[in-house]
């Protein structure tokens, strides 16, 4: 792949994601203060000392944004990876085995999907203990229903090919068929789907945090910061808009990259190669 072939939109997306990732990794080195330190008055406007002003408790907003990137990114990424592992494994197993296993898994999946995701998450998180691991798990399980659908569909396309039949006739087991025959041929559509689900995970986490069931204070995360500062909007304080804008920007960046990946994938599937 040549670097010049990457369109401008994808470059913007990649740059945005890289910037957030750098903030997340090197947060203690970049941030002027820590995320929990009260360093000024409540809702101070932007100044040389506080580049983005302070929040509802007088903490530096910029520092909290930088630490928040760390939490938001890590949780969303962990949830997406877990949901992919689960969804793909079950989806492929359903596609390859067919019959009863497929029916049970697919109908179980439909059952899960018939309950609105947000309500399901609110109930589950209200009952279960509030820690990061449970949060990631709940997000992953709910999201894996969508991945299951996609994984099963793309695997079914490949599973009917003659080379899969040839592997079956050789006597290969299901693991070889899933991981060596089918998975390599579905990687590109799954990769772009991964990006899309990652964007949804960021939004979902922000929603949960805004509702008070996601990341718990005093840890910083972008959705929670919108919630903390939302009352300021009434008084003309824009502190809530900064994390809100950051969420929007990150999701757009991820989508730009995914769009580009999708176009490359579709052109691989017999397009005219103009992607």
């Amino acid at each position: 792949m040549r670097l010049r072939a990457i369109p401008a939109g994808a470059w913007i997306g990649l740059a945005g994601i890289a910037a957030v990732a750098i903030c997340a990794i090197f947060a203690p080195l970049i941030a002027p203060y820590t995320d929990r330190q009260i360093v000024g008055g409540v809702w101070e406007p932007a100044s040389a000392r506080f580049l983005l002003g302070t929040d509802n408790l007088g903490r530096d907003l910029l520092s909290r944004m930088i630490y928040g990137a760390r939490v938001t990114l890590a949780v969303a990424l962990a949830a997406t990876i877990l949901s992919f592992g689960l969804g793909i494994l079950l989806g492929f197993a359903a596609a390859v085995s067919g019959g009863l296993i497929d029916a049970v898994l697919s109908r179980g999946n439909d059952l899960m999907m018939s309950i609105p995701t947000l309500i399901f998450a609110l109930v589950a998180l209200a009952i279960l203990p509030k820690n990061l691991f449970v949060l990631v798990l709940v997000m992953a399980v709910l999201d894996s229903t969508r991945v299951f659908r996609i994984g099963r569909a793309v695997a079914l396309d490949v599973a009917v090919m003659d080379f899969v039949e040839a592997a079956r006739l050789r006597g290969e087991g299901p693991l070889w068929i899933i991981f060596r025959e089918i998975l390599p041929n579905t990687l590109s559509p799954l990769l772009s789907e991964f990006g899309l689900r990652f964007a949804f995970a960021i939004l979902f986490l922000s929603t949960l945090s805004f509702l008070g069931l996601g990341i718990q204070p005093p840890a910083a995360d972008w959705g929670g910061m919108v919630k903390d500062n939302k009352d300021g909007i009434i008084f003309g304080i824009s502190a809530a808009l900064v994390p809100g804008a950051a969420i929007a920007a990150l999701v757009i960046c991820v989508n730009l990259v995914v769009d580009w990946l999708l176009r490359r994938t579709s052109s691989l599937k017999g397009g005219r190669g103009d992607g």
Partner: protein
Amino acid sequence: MAELLSVRDLRIGAISHPPGEPPREVTLVEGVSFDLARGKVLGLIGESGAGKSTIGLATLAHGRGGVRITGGQVLLDGTDILSLGRRDVNRLRGARVCYVAQSAAAAFNPAHRLIDQVIEATLLRGLMSREAARARAVHLFDILGLPDPASFGDRFPHQVSGGQLQRAMTAMALCPNPALIVFDEPTTALDVTTQLDVLAAIKHAIEVTGTAAIYITHDLAVVAQVADDIMVLRHGRVVEYGPARQIIDAPGKDYTRALVSAQRTTRAEAADQSGAVLEIDGVSAGYGGGANVLEGVSLRLPKGQTLAIVGESGSGKSTLARVITGLLPPATGRVLFEGAPLPPSAARRDRDQLRRIQLIYQMADTALNPRQTVRELIGRPLGFYFGLRGAAKTARVTQLLEQIEMGRGFLDRYPAELSGGQKQRVAIARALAAEPEIILCDEPTSALDPLVAEGILRLLARLRRETGVSYLFITHDLGIVRAFADSVAIMHRGKVVRAGRKSAALSPPFDAYTARLLACVPEMRLGWLEETLAMRKDPDQ
């Protein structure tokens, strides 16, 4: 009389995007010139990639995909259509020049009645009133020998057979009364018996309407029946161009001679056909509780020999292969391997039973995993069945590659980097790696060009000699049967209608179906079509 169509020094190019390399300009067609008078038929013949379809489309001033016409002239009644503007070209297409594609099923919209689609272009160009166009369509249905011409057009595409659909598409092209029709492999996707009907209908319609035609095909025997002149193409250049009689009876170039004589040698059948490595005993089978696709099929394959299964599409020959491999357990009957019955389902067979029966598919494209290299593709059965690994495995893969006449240079190539013939050879090597007793060949050459197919058949014959493997060879091509098989089974609607030694099965007296099947195989001489049709009208002769 002035020529209708004159093509002068046509050059066509395209931008190629080879994987991993910068795009480059390639020449598809170079320096092609020909003339076509009114009412005459020119046959364009060549392998895939010879540029015959590209030339056909150029007479409609069209280049498919990234194809560009880079030079030369296409004169239609003295006007160079390549220099016309978009609007004039559009007025030309579907009115004065029409096109008949290979796949009629893909060319018709399944949601509309045939008659509306047949007259659509004519109405769009404003050539006739709706009533006149309908009347002409019905007249054309009649000429093309379609059943019940007055109401045939009221049917939907799925309600007619493939051969009828192809004739309906010919009617669509003839409807505006064009000066020129381009036929692009109109009978290639059809069975031999259907091909004969469509060919006869097309020939008759051309004679009656007096249109000129360009007939594109890779089958010289077919083009010999319809064309006045023949142009043989290879790699975008003209090999030979002349009257049909001269090309068929006295070809001037080696390549043409190879095509004409591609009706290979005949294999002397094995004298001793007793014993059996594989026996099929009264097998009936069907899909998902529906009607049986196979009815009481019993066959025997002697060791080291070849049994050819012949039949049209839908005759159940591929289903038979699925039963033997265990993909479709039969409803009744048994499959015996060296005298012992095999478990009906592949899932119940042990590794050794699976190893001894291998399968070669029709489409090597889909039979090889595109994300595995040749080394992995051929190496997997070696590791799986014999536990070979490392250097020993590589050595054996190299040995197999040499056996299929490809070198170790191909070890790390992906299927996309191989030609069609090479892919099929790799598929053969993969089957061979399992050291099987039987290889089921499901039309392994029908998707390949004639000369490439001949190479594959020679390879299979040599492997039979060297390894003593037995073949069950599924085909619809009786030429292959003569060249390759020891015994034959002819299938029709799920039943074996005739079976036995090749010499006995393919000589008279015939049953009705076998006689019809044999009569439909085009012969490489002029006038064959007329004789066959005359024989058919007067079956006592």
